[in-house]
């Protein structure tokens, strides 16, 4: 069955395309229930996009939550099986504080999780899926990739303590090189280490531009890891959208290694967020490694053009007209591929592509 143009909203069209993409790559759908025990989120509050959760008591008094996140449920429900990989995708409504109003919203979210023996091949595949997901949303997108290992290494080389590392991470994520420079001066960081830190914070560009500099400042291992996964994307149609940029920072208490965010021109916030979350796995008692990402489908609203009309044609018929004549005229228009709404007058509060009048003789006359 083909669905005529204009029936599906952008978000729905993208969702169908994402499902096809994930299935094509061997991911199976993960279905979860709407509620989870609140403790799951209370124990991992910082992992959530927003810390707030909608809670309520079950009939037995147990405190439940409307799920604000999917990854935690997937991690909790899985089992470690050595040398295998669990690959799932999901499309779920989540309930969390979102948008600039900072109030609770129901948000359609899609995503993939790859859990188990995650090797360079799985990492590259996940990055490919993230970049491809962006390309299904828009032809102008960027997958910004970072490596938390490189950020930690450079901060350690600069001799920053734990509190200062937290401060520095904030400056790196905001590209505040001036603040970072002041911090280094205040902490008497050796000039070479400070220069390395500032270079890392300012890095942004293609793998070819960024990786040699990353090696130069003492992050050969991380540069090698980034090279392996980005090289694997070189022969794909998404490679041009890959940038390495260290302003992409996820919470190091949960994430390690590769982290990334996806952006689309015209959407003022990130559309995709993801990374390796081995540390979350350990916190939840799992031995397996993991990488995944979420696609925030609510952000696609920013791309909506002018609102679609309620129908292509409003067919206005004289009150008391013969019903079969009205419906017959409407069916003729529908046969031409138009959507038609029949009414006796033009309502004020609705939009139509064209307004046509059905005459007493059964003719359709379009109004200019």
């Amino acid at each position, binding site marked *: 069955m083909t669905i005529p143009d204009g029936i599906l909203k952008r978000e729905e069209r993208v969702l169908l395309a994402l499902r096809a993409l994930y299935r094509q790559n061997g991911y199976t759908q993960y279905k979860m229930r709407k509620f989870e025990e609140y403790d799951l989120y209370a124990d991992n509050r910082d992992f959530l996009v927003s810390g707030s959760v909608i809670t309520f008591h079950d009939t037995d008094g147990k405190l439940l939550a409307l799920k604000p996140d999917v990854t935690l449920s997937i991690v909790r429900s899985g089992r470690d099986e050595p040398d295998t990989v669990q690959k799932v995708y999901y499309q779920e409504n989540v309930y969390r504080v979102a948008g600039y109003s900072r109030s609770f919203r129901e948000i359609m979210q899609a995503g993939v999780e790859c859990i188990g023996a995650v090797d360079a091949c799985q990492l590259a595949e996940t990055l490919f899926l993230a970049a491809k997901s962006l390309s299904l949303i828009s032809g102008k997108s960027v997958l910004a990739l970072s490596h938390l290992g490189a950020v930690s290494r450079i901060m350690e080389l600069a001799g920053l303590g734990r509190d200062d590392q937290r401060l520095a991470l904030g400056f790196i994520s*905001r590209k505040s090189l001036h603040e970072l420079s002041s911090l280094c001066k205040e902490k008497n960081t050796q000039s070479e280490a400070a220069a390395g830190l500032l270079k890392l914070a300012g890095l942004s560009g293609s793998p070819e531009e960024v990786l040699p500099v990353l090696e130069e400042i003492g992050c050969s291992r991380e540069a090698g890891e980034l090279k392996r996964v980005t090289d694997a994307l070189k022969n794909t149609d998404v490679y041009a959208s890959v*940038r390495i940029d260290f302003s992409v920072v996820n919470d190091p208490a949960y994430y390690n290694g590769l982290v990334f965010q996806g952006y689309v021109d015209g959407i*003022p916030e990130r559309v995709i967020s993801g990374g390796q979350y081995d540390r979350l796995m350990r916190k939840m008692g799992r031995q397996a490694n993991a990488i995944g990402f979420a696609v925030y489908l609510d952000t696609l609203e920013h791309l909506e053009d002018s609102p679609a009309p309620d129908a292509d044609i409003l067919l206005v018929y004289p009150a008391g007209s013969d019903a079969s004549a009205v419906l017959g005229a409407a069916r003729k228009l529908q046969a031409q591929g138009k959507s038609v709404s029949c009414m006796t007058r033009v309502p004020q509060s609705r939009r139509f592509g064209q307004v046509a009048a059905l005459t007493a003789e059964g003719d359709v006359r379009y109004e200019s």
Partner: protein
Amino acid sequence: MNLSIALPKGRLGEKVYTRFAEAGYPCPDVLSESRKLIFDNRELSARYFWAKPSDVAIYVERGAADLGVAGKDILLEYEPDVLELADLGTGNCRMCVASMEGFLPDEQRTLRVATKFSRIATAYFAKKGRDIELIQLNGSIEIAPIIGLSDVIVDIVETGTTLRENHLAVLETIMPISARLIANRASYFFRKGQMDALASALSGKE
């Protein structure tokens, strides 16, 4: 327009606009006396608009502007999710704790703090381990200790003239403040070349 820039209304915005113009982004009518708020330079595909200084970060965070100029005080108070590309080294002032001349805090009592900057004040006194009662005001903060509404105020001090004329004095400086060039995160990835060049030019690093 390819590049949209939010400027803070007032002297700081006018000064900063001149630097944008010198950096290759002029738009002659911006400094005209008219009540117009939005100005386009079609040749450069650039747009400027005037906004309330405390709102500039909101325009940038939400992508209504690609770039903007906001005080560090606003960035610390509202914590917008934006990039901070340069310290423009202008609009310099200090965030201070001030009170009546000769004021001595009573360590046994909760300190009453009047301010517009509740997040900054709360964080500052929490770091010092001091219990405070926060009094959120939206303007004329200086009168709070004079009429006994608060013990101290947390506010921006530029020259200190207003404080002196009201027999108030700075007790502590919390941090120096200056104007910053901020950018929308998503927009940065699609206009990086322009934004980096502007940041370098505006911070004098060309």
